[in-house]
C-alpha cells in the first residue's frame, strides 16, 4: 500500500472513532436542543406579531431563526474542534497516534471532517424541528432554507478550521476554549453592532456619533473578511436577493478561509509539536 492509502485509512479510522463518540454522546443532542430552543423564541415572536397585528409581511421568515440555530450548531462544532487537538495533546494520546501511520495533515483532516459530520447531524435534527414548526404554523418551508443550510456547512467548516488552528496553537483545553469564545464572541458582537448601526437613522444622531459610526463601519468592513459569521449573513442576503454570484462568492470565500486555516493548522502543529507539554 502506498502512503496515500495509509493516510486515507487512518483518516477513516479516526473519523469513525470520533463520530461514534459524538453520536453516542449527549453533547451533539444538547447543542441541537439549544439551537431549536433559541429558534422557538423567534417563532413565538412571529406568532405574537401576526396575532396582534392581524397581518405580517416578512421575507424568508425561517432564515432569522435558522441564522441563530446555525450559530449555535456551528459554535458547538467549533468548540469541539478547538478542544480536539489540545485535549489529545494534554492527555498525550496525540503523540501515541503519531507512532502509527498518521501524519499532521491526516489527523487535522480527520478531526475537521468529523466536526462537519457532527454539524450535519445537528442540522438534520434542527431541520426536522423547522419542518414541524413551519407546518404547524403555516409559515411555509421554502427552498431558500436548503440554500441557507448548504451555505451553513461552509460556515461550520470555517469555524471548525478556526477552532482547530486555535487548538493547535494552544496546549491547554481551557486556554483554547477561552480564546475561541473571546474571538468568536468578538466577531459575533461586531456583527450585531453592525446590524444595530444599520437600523439607526443618521439624521437623528449627533455629528460626533455620525463620525464614530463612519469609522466603525470602515473597521467592520475590514474585520468581516476574518469573521466566518459574515459569510453566512452575506450568503443569507444573497439567497434573499436570488443572487447566485453573491451566493457563490460567499461560499468560495468561506472555502478559501477554511483551506487557509487548515494549512495554517498543519504548520502550527508541526511548529508546536505533538508531545505532552
Amino acid at each position: 500500500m502506498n502512503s496515500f492509502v495509509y493516510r486515507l485509512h487512518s483518516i477513516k479510522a479516526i473519523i469513525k472513532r470520533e463520530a461514534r463518540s459524538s453520536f453516542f454522546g449527549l453533547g451533539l443532542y444538547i447543542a441541537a436542543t439549544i439551537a431549536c430552543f433559541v429558534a422557538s423564541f423567534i417563532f413565538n415572536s412571529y406568532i405574537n406579531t401576526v396575532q396582534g397585528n392581524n397581518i405580517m409581511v416578512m421575507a424568508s421568515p425561517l432564515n432569522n431563526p435558522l441564522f441563530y440555530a446555525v450559530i449555535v450548531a456551528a459554535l458547538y462544532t467549533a468548540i469541539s474542534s478547538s478542544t480536539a487537538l489540545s485535549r489529545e495533546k494534554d492527555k498525550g494520546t496525540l503523540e501515541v497516534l503519531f507512532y502509527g501511520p498518521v501524519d499532521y495533515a491526516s489527523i487535522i483532516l480527520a478531526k475537521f471532517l468529523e466536526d462537519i459530520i457532527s454539524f450535519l447531524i445537528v442540522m438534520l435534527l434542527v431541520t426536522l424541528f423547522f419542518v414541524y414548526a413551519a407546518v404547524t404554523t403555516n409559515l411555509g418551508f421554502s427552498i431558500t432554507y436548503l440554500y441557507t443550510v448548504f451555505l451553513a456547512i461552509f460556515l461550520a467548516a470555517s469555524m471548525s478550521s478556526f477552532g482547530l488552528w486555535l487548538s493547535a496553537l494552544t496546549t491547554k483545553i481551557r486556554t483554547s476554549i477561552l480564546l475561541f469564545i473571546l474571538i468568536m464572541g468578538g466577531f459575533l458582537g461586531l456583527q450585531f453592532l453592525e446590524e444595530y448601526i444599520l437600523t439607526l437613522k443618521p439624521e437623528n444622531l449627533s455629528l460626533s456619533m455620525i463620525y464614530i459610526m463612519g469609522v466603525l463601519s470602515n473597521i467592520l468592513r475590514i474585520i468581516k473578511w476574518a469573521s466566518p459569521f459574515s459569510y453566512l449573513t452575506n450568503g443569507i442576503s444573497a439567497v434573499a436577493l436570488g443572487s447566485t454570484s453573491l451566493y457563490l462568492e460567499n461560499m468560495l470565500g468561506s472555502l478559501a478561509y477554511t483551506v487557509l486555516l487548515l494549512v495554517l493548522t498543519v504548520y502550527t502543529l508541526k511548529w508546536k509539536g505533538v508531545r505532552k507539554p
Partner: protein
Amino acid sequence: MKRGRFILIVSILLAGLLLSSVVVFGAAPPKQRETVYSLNVWDGKDFASPFYPANINTIYVMADFQNVYSVKETLVYYWPISREYMADWDSLNKDIGDTLEVLKGDKVIGTYKKVDYVFYYPKGYWGGDTKLYTGDVARAKKKEYDKALDKYWKDVDAYYKAYNEYNKAVDEFYKKIQEGKPAGKIPQEPKQPQAPTFYVTDINKAYVFSLPAGIYTIRLKDKDGKIVPGTVKSLIAFSHRREGIGYNIIPESKWTYPETADDVTQIIYQYKEGVLYFQPFTEWEFNELQYNKLSNPQSAGRPDRWIWVHMQPASNVKLDIYTGGRLVTSVRERPYYVEQVPGSSLGYNIKLLDRKENPYGSADFTGFRFSVPPTGDYRLVAVSKDGKVIENSERYIRPITSGDAKNIFIASFGPLVIGLLIYIFRRVGR
C-alpha cells in the same frame, strides 16, 4: 466655603447653558456667498429640487431621464437645527455661466446651453404625473395655460355679470308673483366657470439633458470659455437594479394602517382568515445611498442597502391568485367606501361602491379584494393587459393557523429526547 463653591459652579453651568441656547436658537447664522448647483431631478415619481452647496462634491441624478441643472450664486448658511446647509434665495439668486460641460474621464461628451423649460402638471400642482417640457413645446404649453387662465377669468367676469342679471331676474320673478301677475319660468342660476385643472409653471431657463448611467464630471464655463471656479463636481447618473410590482396591502381589520410588500421574497401572513385589499404599484429598486442623495444631497444613506420605490399605480392589471398551481380567483380593481357602524360603538364596514346604486358616492380607496381562507397557501401574481405575468409581481399569502408557540417550545426538546434514547439504548445494550 464649600457651599459657596458649589453655588459658583452651578451658576457657571447655568450661565453656560443659557448662553449656548442663545448661540443655537437666538443668533442669526452667518451667511456666505457661494456658487451652488440647483437642480430639478426626476425621482421616479416627481421632480425633486435639491441644491448642492460648495462643500458637496458629488451630484446624483437618475440616468436616462431629463433633469434640469442651474448654477447660481446665492447666500449659504448652516442651520444647526436640521444640521444642513440652506440657501437664502430671497437675498441672492443670480444665475451664472454660459455653457455646462459633461466629461467622461477627460473627454467632453456633452456641451449644453440654457433652454426654456416649464413643468406641466396635468392634474394640478398637487396631482402628480408632472411633465417637463423644453423649447417650443414648453412655450406652447405655457401659452395654452395662459390662454386657459385668460379664458377662465373672462368666464368669471361673464359669470358675475350673469349672476347679477340672475339676481335681478329672481327679484323680478318674486315681485310678479307677489303682485299676482304671470311670472313665467323661474330664472336659472348661471353655472360657475371651471378653473383650469392643469397648471404650467413660468418659463425659466436652465440646462436640460439626460445621461446614461455612469460617473461623469460636470463643470460650468463662462462666455469667455473659462471654467467658473467652484463648479467642477462629480456627477453620478444611476439607474435601477430591478423592476417589479409592489403592493400596498389594506387589511380589512385596520384599513387606515396599510402594510407594504415590495419584494418577491416577502410573504404576507394573515392571522387565520381575513380580507385583504391589494393596491399594486410599478416599482424600481435603487441603491439607498444614491436614491437618498438624489432628492437631498446632504442626507445620508447606505451604499450596501437597496430600496424599492413605488413609481406609479399599476394600471390595466388584474391579480391572479393560485393555490397548488390551480387558479383560485382572478381579481380586478374596484372602488370601496368605508361605512361607520351606527351608534356609539367603534367599528366600520368596507363596502363595494356600486355606481348604479350610488352614482354620486365617492370611494375611500380602490383595490383588489381577496378574502384569505383559513388554511392553505396562495400565490398572487399581477397579470398585464396582454395576459403576461409581470416580473417580480409574485407574492405568497399564508394564513397563520397557530394561536401560540407552546407546541414549538415542546418540540424543541425533541433532539434531547432522541439523544437520551440513543444514550440509554447503548448503555442497556452493553
